């Protein structure tokens, strides 16, 4: 923990992580999303940089390649003047038999204040959090969680349909900005950390989630979570939704026997303009990327006015700026 002399905010770094949302209250999340608004303004200036995190060192520790997530975090860190080091752990050290803890021991010698961790195994950021004093931001662990993606999705939805119950103006509960709102997630939910984190966050903020896909990809157990229902027919799932999210479908699902064929998936679950007409007026289309056009989402829909896919990517930077700032500097 290296608060230096040039640190503009001498507040001690708090040992608090963003691993998932279990430890975060709705109020914490709402405050963080509010801070993202301030960060978004910074990014509209001519000089898109503030000294808020000067003197802090942030390391991206990616055990699994993800250029877009890593770039988004690096942009968020540099816009606040943090020093950034990239540790592409890949799987090479693991293949050599090095333990996760030993990998961490090595990079911990670089006096890092915050690690941004991407790992193919669920729970790896939890393990790392036990072994280091630095803060940890989970940038995606296995199928389990991708909390900053869920935050940027929530931020994007708030921008589009505002806070407050049922879109009405009267007495909205600030901690339940998604009260009365419905998010439908379509596709390979079981293998998706994006889906898990969105379920966790959207319901925490008062909304309801519908999960849709074939039973091989959307196990019925998910329906046991309060505020979540599982529907296998796409039309029924989309009906009345305020936001519809497609998920990435990986080719290996076919070889693993989870799906008969791509064409059958397209026929039953592809998101199209037509099916979106069943959704709420003004419903938006989201996708965490990378998008496989004309499989998960029809091109016309992906490029049409309902699509907020590009805003999602853009919103990733101010949201991640807010996350880094909140963990390293804290409230204020």
């Amino acid at each position, binding site marked *: 923990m290296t608060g230096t002399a040039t640190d503009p905010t001498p507040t001690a770094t708090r040992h608090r992580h963003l691993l998932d949302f279990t430890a975060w209250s709705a109020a914490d999340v709402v405050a963080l999303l509010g801070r993202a608004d301030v960060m978004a303004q910074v990014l509209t200036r001519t000089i898109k940089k503030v000294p808020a995190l000067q003197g802090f060192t942030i390391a991206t520790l990616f055990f699994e390649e993800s250029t877009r997530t890593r770039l988004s975090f690096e942009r968020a860190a540099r816009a606040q003047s943090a020093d950034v080091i990239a540790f592409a752990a890949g799987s090479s050290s693991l293949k050599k038999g090095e333990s*996760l803890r030993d990998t961490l021991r090595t990079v911990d010698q670089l006096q890092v204040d915050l690690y941004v961790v991407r790992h193919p195994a669920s729970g790896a950021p939890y393990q790392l959090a036990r072994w280091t004093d630095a803060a940890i931001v989970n940038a995606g*662990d296995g199928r389990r969680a991708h909390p900053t993606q869920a935050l940027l999705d929530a931020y994007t939805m708030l921008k589009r349909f505002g806070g407050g119950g049922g879109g009405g103006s009267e007495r909205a509960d600030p901690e339940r900005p998604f009260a009365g709102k419905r998010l439908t997630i379509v596709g390979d939910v079981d293998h998706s950390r994006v889906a898990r984190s969105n379920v966790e966050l959207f319901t925490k903020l008062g909304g309801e989630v519908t999960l849709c896909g074939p039973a091989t990809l959307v196990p019925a*157990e998910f329906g046991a979570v309060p505020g979540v229902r599982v529907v296998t027919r796409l039309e029924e799932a989309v009906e009345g939704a305020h936001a519809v999210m497609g998920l990435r479908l990986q080719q290996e699902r076919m070889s693993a026997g989870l799906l008969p064929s791509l064409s059958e998936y397209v026929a039953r679950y592809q998101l199209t303009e037509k099916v979106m007409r069943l959704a709420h007026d003004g419903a938006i289309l989201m996708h965490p990327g990378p998008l496989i056009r004309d499989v998960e989402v029809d091109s016309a829909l992906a490029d049409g006015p309902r699509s907020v896919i590009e805003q999602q990517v853009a919103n990733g930077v101010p949201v991640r700026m807010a996350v880094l700032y909140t963990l390293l500097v804290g409230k204020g």
Partner: protein
Amino acid sequence: MSDHPTDDSRGAEPTPKRRSPARSRTSVRGGAAGPRTVLRRARLAIVDGLSRPTDVYVRGGVVEGFDLGGAVDLELDAREQLVTPAFVDLHAHLRDPGQEVKEDLASGLAAAAAGGFGTVISMANTTPAVDDPGLVADLIRRAELVGQARLRPAATVTAGMRGERLTDFAALQAAGAVMLTDDGLPLADTNLMRRACEYAAELGLVIQTHSEEPRLRANGVMNEGRVSRELGLPGNTASAETIMVFRDTEIARLTGARVHIAHVSCERAMRVAEWQRANGAPITIEVTPQHLTLTDEALRTFDPVFKVAPPLRTSTDVAHLREALRRGAVDNIGTDHAPHTLAEKERDLLEAPFGIANLEVTFALLYTRLVLTGELPLTCLLHLLQGGPASVMGWQAPTLTPGAPADLTVIDLEGERPVQGRSFKSKAKHNPWEGEPLSGWPRLTLVRGNVCYDREGG
């Protein structure tokens, strides 16, 4: 397994000298029948409790008798604690040969003695796998040099555990192998399983199975269910075990082979095994300490110390296994002691290996959780570690009657102390119960009449 008397240290100490309150040499004797040891104030397990304190005399590696009096070479004090035949474990991974970084014969058999075990069957999934009579003979020879708990090696069912070709069962048996198993890997080829059972039945060998349908188990790292869905970890469904238990018990019925179902972990597999046994399948059923005490909720910590195969199941399964114990439906408790290095267990949950090291906590854990809570009588727990496993193997039940091998352990049923991995004899110091206060720790273990473990003596 020769019961050789001690002859190593006599003469090194010409004057009798007090060593510890528990252990003193009173005179130097010996003679043709070997050195004589007395275990004073021993209390034996009887129905409804413990016997009156009694002196147990041991001579030449066998129990000589009770309250005999007379001169002895070594005097030990049982302090009115439980003295009982040393336990028998049918299922321990001692990792020797080839994986000595995890465990070896010396550390593994010392760990067994420290856990109160006098006899251990070593699993054959070593490097190389124990698929050759020479390897069996070598294990036996080296274990005798170690002089700790007795080793009875298992050998593999198939060459190199590749699941393709049977090993030379008769030659392995002649070399001293007492069990055949590819434990760690299920035998996928059902026809080969049938032939293995037919061939083993003729020789009277026990075939032990790790029953999980390999394709269905797939790459699961924990029990499939609500918790695995939530944690996003690949699940291993209880159906994979249930299906394979049905297959293996059905093959046992078909062939008449003695099939031992290792580590039954879930309710449905237990029901299937019991149903098959009731309908004539010559099978026996084992459960492990971990499947009796832990659930898949433990994986919420994301600590690979809880990664084990078969996986930790749900509380419903644990309750059913315990109920089966109470009904006497379980033949033995096998530890499935499966040591790994700490570094291996500090990998992520997908990469970390399966296995829990538990030889040294097994009795205290089960005594504390099952006997002290009133769930299971002490005599039942002892049976599951003594007569139960012996009967699975067709061995004589361990006993302290005169003439029986002097394999016994002294257990402190009163004192409570926390699990401390760092004091383990096993090379694996990490375990799922670290820090938990338990009672029922073995204090002293004799094998062949020799002190192999003495908690105070080190």
